[in-house]
């Protein structure tokens, strides 16, 4: 109760500070609209459905690319952690590509796939895949060898060990890798949407881009707030339950 009150006061005073800065008229209201204007934009965009539609379009692209990225990255990360050859080849490739900011994939994706959903998907997958792969690889590598030894004495080997021992044992790393992958996917998709206009659907990035074109600062700030909110909500609903489970089982304290 006390914690939520503190949080509420904090955000309320942030908005108050914003209002004070607007009232002080240091900047033109075109550059810094009052909070109420932004709220009005949000209300209107919600009622005409453009915000909801944009969020759905964006989240659909994000989820699809993210899930594909994880489905490829997870097993590949496990594989590179177990094999020297794979680690010298795919592992090094992943490390290199991970350092490439994912927005750098956009020009290539456009040339390969054109202004299409496939280009978006490609950028999101590239943003997710390598960081998930590397996190899982690191996690599986740092496992105490005693787990595998103990499992062997109970008759576990090969794929069973991989699925029932190495994968669950690296779960803390897998979850933090998936979280990082999510963050990268989210960033790369936003960059791609601002960069490229697709006729197949306007996402949040496009709304942001149109806001700039129209000099509508209330829209720009409003969409930014929505993007922040979705990021927070994803963290709380997708990853927090996992992290709570891990803390409870592993006994690491929050």
């Amino acid at each position, binding site marked *: 109760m006390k914690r939520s009150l503190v949080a509420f006061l904090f955000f309320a005073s942030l908005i108050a500070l914003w209002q004070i800065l607007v009232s002080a008229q240091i900047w033109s209201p075109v550059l810094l609209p009052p909070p109420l204007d932004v709220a009005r934009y949000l209300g209107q965009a919600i009622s005409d459905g453009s915000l909801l539609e944009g969020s759905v379009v964006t989240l659909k692209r994000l989820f699809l690319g993210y899930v594909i990225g994880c489905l490829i990255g997870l097993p590949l990360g496990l594989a590179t952690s177990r094999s020297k050859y794979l680690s010298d080849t795919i592992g090094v490739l992943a490390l290199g590509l991970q350092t490439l900011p994912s927005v750098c994939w956009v020009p290539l994706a456009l040339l390969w796939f054109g202004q299409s959903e496939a280009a978006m998907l490609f950028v999101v997958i590239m943003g997710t895949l390598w960081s998930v792969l590397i996190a899982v690889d690191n996690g599986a590598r740092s496992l*105490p060898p*005693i*787990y595998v*030894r*103990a*499992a*062997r*004495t*109970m*008759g*576990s080997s090969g794929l*069973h060990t991989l699925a*029932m*021992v190495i994968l*669950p*044992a690296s*779960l803390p790393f897998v979850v933090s890798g998936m979280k990082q992958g999510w963050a990268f996917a989210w960033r790369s998709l936003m960059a791609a949407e601002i960069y490229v206009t697709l006729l197949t659907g306007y996402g949040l990035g496009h709304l942001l881009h149109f806001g700039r074109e129209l000099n509508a600062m209330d829209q720009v700030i409003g969409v930014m707030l929505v993007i922040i909110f979705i990021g927070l909500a994803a963290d709380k609903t997708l990853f927090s339950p996992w992290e709570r489970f891990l803390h*409870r*089982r*592993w*006994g690491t304290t929050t």
Partner: protein
Amino acid sequence: MSTSPELINQPPAKLVIDHVTKSFKSQRSSLTALDDVSLDVSEGEFVCLVGPSGCGKSTLLNLIAGLDTPESGTLASDGRPITGTGRERGVMFQEHALFPWLDVLGNVLFGLKLKPHLNKAERIEIAKYYIELVGLGRFIHANVHELSGGMKQRVALARALAPNPRLLCMDEPFAALDAMTREQLYADLQGIWSKRKKTIIFVTHNVREAVCLGDRVVLFSPNPGRIREQFLIDLPRPRDINSVELAEHATRITRALKPHTVQTVAE
């Protein structure tokens, strides 16, 4: 009851170690951990391997468990050569090695799930039997980190016993525990051993512990690792680690250990 065959004691294993040699080579040096070691263990026997660190006792245990292979010589359990790990040889390590992603029941079930002919209900019944046996019936759904060091080793014991192995390898399982917890576990292990009739190979550097638990104490000497002397312990059971007779036996063995220790220091 359908699970009863699983809970019946099988005839215990007989272990034959025949002229086994094992050395570890690094870039700079080579260490002969075991040099031409032979040892026979009879059915249901509790054998303690004792010696200073580096004498090869843990190496021998790893070979018996099948976690490692000898350079020369052979090991056989029940007449079958040991070529790798096997469910008929359970292992308990110095570190509890429990899986933190599973609760107590899940850990004990791990080995049972790899036994093909059991169904789910039977597995759970067997796991519960062993968790009760080690005195942790109230902690069946506890997480590993919620248990004390002694309780973790009890779970590890239950996990090693659950697949009903014929031989149990224990590698200094109580070394990291405090004295009071250890004494309780000596009593409990003797009780469990008399109930389940396993052949046990127990590695320790604690002579008293060895005398308290073993039918036979095998003394190792290092550089190269060899069997130096063997002692039969014919004290009645259950044994109390603080009894005078036990202390006398331990002193006798410690004396045998001493000249050697002095000699290594002199080298």
